[in-house]
């Protein structure tokens, strides 16, 4: 059996390379516990903002055939409650506890600084922050601010697939102190119902995740891998062990899943990992270092 343990940093050791992406079940301590018990090697909370955000009316998501589209309107309880939620998760998970990645979202540098200081109270294992799409100056400032306020906690810059010059952005984040890159956040899209002559989602547009995002994510991860030396947390359309292998071959050190929970339930973690293990065995890989970024060697 291949060696699946993954040392992301001195502080963080995961038992396997598959984790829960941000946003899916990430607003509930008991669902995070369920993800951990179902095989997630780490769990990520939903993006939290300074204040509570109520979210939108239905419909807020749909399976459109090639993937999913979602716009929940950034529902989240606000950073203070999120600190509470992370603590509750740790307590309820007890023996099953796995590292927690706290995801934060803001529009500007000050808010990011503030959020980091606040979320730090929960002592998450990683602080993940969502970068804007293309302003390199802002990207540098935000990363520096999160880095400064996170203290000894490692930070991961989450980058969207719509990001311009994604390799360069990741490089900027690395230069300003990011310990990891999380990629990708989904692409904007829209469903229209021709008979209703209306957009389907109540907020009109949403984000495209699942299978149709995979080739886009693989390209982004490749571009990032060529530019940075820090580990990449890869995600976007992974729903099988082969998808997972592809993402690691492109350069991801570990892989996150979100939409796969719709396609395969919480069992997705163990099923995907089993398939990945079969792949590693039949193809003769001994450990994760051998597969990570192999297509570029």
């Amino acid at each position: 059996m291949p060696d699946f343990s993954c040392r992301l940093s001195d502080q963080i050791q995961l038992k396997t390379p598959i984790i829960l992406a941000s946003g899916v079940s990430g607003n509930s301590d008991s669902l995070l516990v369920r993800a951990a018990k179902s095989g997630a090697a780490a769990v990520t909370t939903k993006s939290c903002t300074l204040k509570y955000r109520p979210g939108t009316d239905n419909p807020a998501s749909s399976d459109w055939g090639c993937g999913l589209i979602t716009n929940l309107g950034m529902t989240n309880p606000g950073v203070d409650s999120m600190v509470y939620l992370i603590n509750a998760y740790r307590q309820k998970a007890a023996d099953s506890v796995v590292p927690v990645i706290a995801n934060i979202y803001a529009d500007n540098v000050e808010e990011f600084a503030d959020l980091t200081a606040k979320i730090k109270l929960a002592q998450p294992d990683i602080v993940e922050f969502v970068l804007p799409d293309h302003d390199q100056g802002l990207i540098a400032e935000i990363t520096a601010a999160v880095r400064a306020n996170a203290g000894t906690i490692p930070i991961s810059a989450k980058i969207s697939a719509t990001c311009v010059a994604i390799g360069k952005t990741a490089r900027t984040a690395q230069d300003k102190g990011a310990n990891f890159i999380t990629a990708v956040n989904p692409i904007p899209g829209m469903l229209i119902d021709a008979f209703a002559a209306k957009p389907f989602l109540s907020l009109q547009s949403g984000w495209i995740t699942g299978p149709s995002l995979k080739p886009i994510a693989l390209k982004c991860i490749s571009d990032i891998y060529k530019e940075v030396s820090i580990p990449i947390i890869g995600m976007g359309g992974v729903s099988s062990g082969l998808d997972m292998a592809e993402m690691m071959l492109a350069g991801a050190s570990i892989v996150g899943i979100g939409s796969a929970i719709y396609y395969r339930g919480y069992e997705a973690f163990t099923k995907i990992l089993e398939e990945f293990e079969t792949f590693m065995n039949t193809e003769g890989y001994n450990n994760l270092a051998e597969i990570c970024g192999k297509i570029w060697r």
Partner: protein
Amino acid sequence: MEKPLFNEGKKSRVFTVDKVKIENEKTHSLIMKESMQSEPGQFILVWIPGMGEKPFSVAASDPLMITIADVGKISGQIDRYQPGDRLWIRGPFGQGYKPYGENALLVGGGYGASPLLFLAETLLKKDINVHVFLGARSSDLLILVDEFEKLPVTLHITTNDGTRGIQGFVTVPLEETIQNLADIQNACVYACGPKKMLFGIDALCERYGIPRQLSWEAIMRCGMGLCGNCKIEMPDTWKEPADKPGSKKAWLVCKDGPTSFTK
């Protein structure tokens, strides 16, 4: 040679109202022109463009029927629909009831009875004995009584105010029937209704050790097992399946349910 595109079956599609049937003052059924293959206990999502989307139980599948209590925005809008009007529906979603044993005890509270007619028909086709227990606050809130009367089932009706059937809670005739069962392990209670009622029925069933299938309600957002909004905590009596660790304290009505199984 055309290529099949992809798996679009989960998208919302247009349905047209064929008939409207008044069940009681607040409740009516819409029978569509189209059908949708589904099992009793599964649900669908009904979208009113520009207004919103809500879950409803499948009350019949061929043609598709839904039974709706007018209690708010979406249900109030649907209440106005006439033959020829269109609704947008996706589904079916979730886990339905699984026919089990020789005797079936179906319990519905209020519009919670809506999936039970469909279930009764399915069970009868499998030669299962069916008892139906309908409860409501008052006679005018009962639904589907006429339909059940047409079927070879034993019907028990209760109202809190005694305006029809026995006065009291639906659990009274239910308990009596359970007590008279020859083989409790070969029977099953199927219930649908508000959370409080389900907890009550679950406790009763636990006392007698009778298997039950409960269909839960919750406020849904994504309907896809992703947002966590429909999460509930299951009763103590419920045994977490080995392949769903952590689900007892975080059970998703849209994905794990709406039907739970206890044996």
